Each structure stands twice: as structure tokens, then as C-alpha cells.
């Protein structure tokens, strides 16, 4: 089957930027030509009109919680994959803090089986750094890699023991498994329910200081320097972390970093009224932190935008604030919130594609980009499309978003994985 994506602005950073037509045959890209030059050549092709739209390599969200196995009432691999497709992602990485934890071949294989059955987007399992996320001993990285793990992380928890973290970096390198670090000093953060600061003081909630994150960022940078093995810092939220990463990069230390849309969009003011949908770890920070995160995105300190999609049901969220679970969902709002950065002049559209596709692929060691012969993983974005977020219509099983009812401009309108359309706005995908 032939598909012709016609007349869109094709952006593949470092490779393509222009109004082009892309021809896809049997799931692979077979031709990329200047728009119009292929006119009438393929009368049998299914035409996708992409005029006034942006055509990019498939977007990758490298930080997602799919909750399966163990908490299928919050999300399943199937529902999470659908949510990803609706959000414009062709691939997602799922974190290992499921029940059981993804710390062995069997769980990794199970996730991949479920993903194959869902047959929607590519699901890359991230396995645990330590057995049971307990920080006691290393998981069997060779076997996990063989089973299909793409990276390792104890996300949700920090690796407290610096020696174990050091060994994880050294050992994982032998199997090309990138290490993703959740940075949190548990003692310093203990008991905290939100960012430490004026808002927490006024609300009478215990605070989590910025330093509880940056202390661990600095430690991991030190271990990265010690071992020479890259480390990827998850969900950066503070100015101190941004500064530390920037400094490390200047010194040539192979550290990379991600942040999430809520950290460059919201501040701890959103917690007022005890809104549990504004509760996550790390917590929403102050205005100056938000600005530093934006600056970090703009100057290249922060490589990746990832959602930390963390589904929770009403049971965990419609409770007292300090008892509410941490985390918000993000797959179906990420592109629109990131496009706002482009509209506000923080980053260019090209940089957005880098942070949501090129860079995550590079960090994870995935082939990426729009090249002839490559599988057609493509996202089409309509940057002008205005709409209002309605959480009730989400494909995710959960509704824990602070962005419900927000007016957005720009969204993904088509998601294609290996030539198969897994989402097209206005169409029912069978």
C-alpha cells in the first residue's frame, strides 16, 4: 500500500526542512521529494494532505508510567499506547515501577507482548537499576537487554547508595543500557507534600526544598565524571539542577536531561486550593525555577521534553492533599503545551522536534529520522489548531491532569507507526 504525505513542512533536524512530499510503501519511507515534483506520479497512493502542517519524525516520550502489570485500573499498556498515539507519540518508554517491578526478563517480555497485542505505538520497557527498586543489588542487565529493555532506571525512587549508582553506570555500559536517574535526597524531601516556599507556608503544607533534587543531580554528575558513563537526569524542575547540568556540559561531562511540560508551564501557585492534580514529584516549583527550566530548554542544557505520564485514579487523587498520590498524566497534552514554547519564542519548531524526537532517540540509541528505507514513524502537527482540553475524552484511563479545560493552540493531528495510521484527528481508527 502506498501513502503520500503531501505538502507539509517536513522538519527532521539536521536532515530536512522544507515543503516536501513523503512517499511510503509497505510501512517504509521510499521517497522524499520537493513538494509538487511527484505530482500525479502515484495515482493509486492514499493521499494525506499536510498543507500548513508540520511533518516530523515520530515523537518519542521517554518517560511514561503505564501501570501494567499491577495497577491496570489506572492505565494499561493498551490504553497508555492509545493515549500516546492521540498525543502524537509513535514511541514511549515505560518505567519499571509496576507490580511486579520490571526487574527481570519475564516482566520485560510481558510488557512487550502486551504492547504487541495493543499494536498501536512502540513501547520500550525501561528496566529497574536495582532489584525490586530497593537499592540493594543490581538487576541482570544482560538478560534484561536481551529481553528487550531499552534503558534502566529506578524511577519513582532515587538510587540512594552512591556506590550502587556508580556500579550501575559502569556495568550497564557493557550492555549499552542508558541509565536514567530519578534525583531525590529522600531525607531532605521527607514528609514534604509540595515545593518549599511561600505557597507551602501559607497552605500549611510541608515543603520539599529545591536542594533535595539538585544534591542528587550533582552527585550523579560526579559519578558520571568518575565513570565516564553517560547519565540521563529525569524530570528536572529546579534552577539549581539546570545550573549544575549546564556547568557539567560545559566541562564535557556526558550528562543529558529531560523536563516535563508541567515544569515549564506551571508553578507551585497551581497547588492553591489544595489541587491534588497539581501534586507530583518533583513538585511544581517557583516562578524563577520555571524560568530557569525554560532557559535550559532554550540554551540546550535540557535535551528532552518527556511527560512523566503518571496515571492515578480518583481513589488516589480525591483525598486530602498530603495523602494524595504524586503524579499527573501528560501524553495527551504534551505536544500542545510544548507548542506553546514555540509560540512564546522560547524554542523554535526545529528545536521542539529535537527535544521530542531526535534527542530522546539519540540518548536511547534508537535509529530515528526521515530517511529512505526507514520505517515510516511520522507525526503530523497542526500548529494552528485551537481546541479545549477535555479530560473526559482522554484515551488514558485516568483523568489526573491540571490542564483540563485549558484552551490550547496546536496539536498532533496524525500519528503513524511503520506506515500504519494509529491516530488521525476526526477519524475512527479501527
Amino acid at each position: 500500500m502506498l501513502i503520500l504525505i503531501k505538502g507539509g513542512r517536513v522538519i527532521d533536524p539536521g536532515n530536512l526542512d522544507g515543503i516536501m512530499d513523503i512517499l511510503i510503501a509497505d510501512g517504509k519511507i521510499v521517497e522524499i521529494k520537493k513538494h509538487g515534483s511527484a505530482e500525479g506520479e502515484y495515482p493509486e497512493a492514499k493521499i494525506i494532505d499536510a498543507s500548513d502542517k508540520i511533518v516530523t519524525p515520530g515523537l518519542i516520550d521517554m518517560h511514561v508510567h503505564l501501570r501494567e502489570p499491577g495497577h491496570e485500573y489506572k492505565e494499561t499498556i493498551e490504553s497508555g499506547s492509545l493515549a500516546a498515539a492521540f498525543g502524537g507519540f509513535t514511541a514511549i518508554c515505560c518505567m519499571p515501577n509496576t507490580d511486579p517491578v520490571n526487574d527481570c526478563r519475564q516482566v520485560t517480555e510481558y510488557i512487550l507482548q502486551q504492547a504487541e497485542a495493543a499494536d498501536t505505538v512502540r513501547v520500550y520497557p525501561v528496566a529497574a537499576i536495582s532489584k525490586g527498586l530497593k537499592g540493594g543489588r543490581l538487576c541482570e542487565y544482560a538478560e534484561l537487554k536481551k529481553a528487550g529493555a531499552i534503558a534502566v532506571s529506578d524511577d519513582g525512587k532515587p538510587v540512594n547508595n552512591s556506590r550502587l549508582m556508580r556500579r550501575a553506570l559502569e556495568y550497564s555500559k557493557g550492555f549499552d543500557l542508558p541509565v536514567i536517574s530519578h534525583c531525590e535526597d529522600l531525607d531532605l524531601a521527607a514528609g514534604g507534600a509540595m515545593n518549599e516556599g511561600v505557597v507551602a507556608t501559607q497552605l500549611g503544607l510541608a515543603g520539599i526544598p529545591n536542594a533535595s533534587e539538585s544534591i542528587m543531580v550533582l552527585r550523579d554528575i560526579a559519578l558520571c565524571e568518575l565513570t565516564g558513563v553517560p547519565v540521563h537526569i529525569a524530570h528536572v524542575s529546579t534552577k539549581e539542577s539546570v545550573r549544575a547540568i549546564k556547568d557539567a556540559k560545559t566541562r564535557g561531562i556526558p550528562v543529558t536531561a529531560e523536563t516535563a511540560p508541567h515544569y515549564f508551564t506551571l508553578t507551585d501557585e497551581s497547588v492553591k486550593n489544595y489541587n491534588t492534580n497539581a501534586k507530583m514529584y518533583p513538585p511544581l516549583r517557583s516562578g524563577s525555577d520555571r524560568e530557569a527550566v525554560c532557559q535550559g530548554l532554550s540554551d540546550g542544557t535540557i535535551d528532552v521534553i518527556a511527560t512523566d505520564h503518571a496515571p492515578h485514579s480518583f481513589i488516589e487523587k480525591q483525598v486530602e492533599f498530603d495523602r494524595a498520590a504524586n503524579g499527573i498524566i501528560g501524553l495527551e497534552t504534551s505536544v500542545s503545551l510544548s507548542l506553546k514554547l514555540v509560540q512564546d519564542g522560547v524554542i523554535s519548531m526545529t528545536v521542539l522536534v529535537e527535544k521530542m524526537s531526535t534527542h530522546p532517540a539519540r540518548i536511547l540509541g534508537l535509529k530515528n529520522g526521515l530517511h529512505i528505507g526507514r520505517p515510516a514513524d511520522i507525526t503530523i502537527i497542526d500548529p494552528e489548531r485551537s481546541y479545549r482540553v477535555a479530560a473526559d475524552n482522554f484515551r488514558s484511563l485516568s483523568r489526573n491532569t491540571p490542564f483540563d479545560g485549558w484552551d490550547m493552540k496546536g496539536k498532533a493531528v496524525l500519528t503513524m507507526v511503520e506506515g500504519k495510521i494509529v491516530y488521525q484527528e476526526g477519524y475512527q481508527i479501527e
Partner: protein
Amino acid sequence: MESLSVDEINLILDTADKMKEISQRPIKKVPALRGKTVVLFFYEPSTRTRTSFDIAAKRLSADSLSISASSSSMVKGETLIDTARTIEAMNPDVIVIRHGSAGAPHMLAKIMKPSIINAGDGMHAHPTQCLLDLMTVRENRGKISGLRIAVIGDISHSRVARSNSIGFTKMGAHVVLAGPRTMIPKGIESLGVSVSYNVEEAIRDADVIMMLRIQKERQQDFLFPSEREYSAVYGLTTAKLKKAKENVLIMHPGPINRGVEIAYDVADGPYSIILDQVTNGVAVRMALLYLVTGGARNADSD
């Protein structure tokens, strides 16, 4: 206290002054709230506040009943919202709630019909304590505006300190908070108060000194090394009192740790109005129950 205007606070205090007289009669009961049901929903142990509300409701002829955390379905795993909806289904007029989580009364006020009165939520607010403190100071000094109020102790963990900072500042007083740095939360000055890390400095020229209870378990939080050192440096003693104005008022929201934050002789001394606070607590709570059931307004969260 954030949502109350100066006029509303004055209305509550004026009403409380009138209510106080009822408690001095031989027959301490008026029919104002006859046929009204007041539920005292206490998720945190409390004797003083719960008893005070209970007496207040009964003196107004309301039917009051207490539910405590240990007797409620909460121990059986029911959520706060479900427990509250169950109580709501029995048509109470007022729910007085004390809860260990900041914002819990706020959450219930958003979804429930009966009036909600916050009897203390986590470290956030204790509005009836603030109102009774305002009443007690006004009664003793004839005014609140222009007074210097020193609040000393664990400000970080104190809902009383927060509510009093807002309430006294709003009524024109100058509030100084003092304690070791470990007990002063970031950005507390945003409430319009000033901060001192030196007790002598804080009580110099103070018209009112309010001491806060020191909880022994906070030692595990590394907030202070020992009660011994705390009382020596931050406790209120006769010697320190000499720095304050003559006729200074000594207050404490209770329960008192004698010999820790306040010396024996100071707690029982001539300047102490600690028991007046308790007496006025009943009057303020009567006033609030009367006003909210009269549809005056929902004294919801703060």
C-alpha cells in the same frame, strides 16, 4: 482567616461578647439553635477544642454529637469524602471538622451542603483559636490595632501561628514571630509579619506574648536538641519577661508544657490570660455557630 473581612471579624467578636454573658447565667442555655444538628467531626485527638464546640452548641440548644477518627469508618478504610457524604445524608446543619491534613475542611466545603467550620487543619489554619485570641486581647486591652504581638515557638508546624499572624495583622496589630531558625518557615513574612530569631528581641515592647507548645517528637526532625536547651534559650521565664512592657499579656493556645516553653510561675502569673482564652473559646464558637446557622456565611476553610 484570609477570607474574613475586618467587618466580619468585628461582627463575630461583638456577637461573641454577647454570647459570653449566656455562659455566666445560672441557666446557661438559650433556644437559638433548637432543632439544629451540629456534628463534631474530629480526625485528630482534641479535648479542648472539641469540648469547647460541644458546650457552645449545647448552650445554644443545638443537638451535637462527636465523631472521632478511631470511632469512624476511616479506620475501616473509608475515604474522608465518603465518610463526610454519609454524615451529610443525615442532614446535619453544621459540621465542625478537625483534621491532620491541611486543606481537608476546604475540600469538604467545596462538595457539601452543610456549613463547615474548620476546627484546625494540619499546619494550615485554626481560625476559631485566632478569633478567641482576638476576643481575649480586645477584652483585656480594649483594642487590637497598634499592639505588638510576639508569637514564640515552632512557627513551622503551628496552625495557630499562621491564623493568628493573618488575623492580628488584619486587625491592625504588629505580629513578631520568633523561634530558632529550624522552626521558622520560608516566606512567612508574606503574611505581613516580621521575624526574629531572638526571643528577648521579640518580646521587647510586646503587648502580648503568645507561647506555642513544643512537641517532643520534633526532636526527631532535628528541630531542637533537647527540651533543656529549648527552655533555656526560647522558653518564657520571669527573667525574660522583664524585657516586655509592663502589664504584658501572656497567652498560650494549650496544652501547656510547663517548664519547657513556659515557666511554672509565668503560666500562673499575674499576666497570664491563658484561662480567659479557654472561657472565650466557648463564646466565640457560640457566635460562629449562631452566625453560620443564621445563614450569615459559610465559615469554610480558613
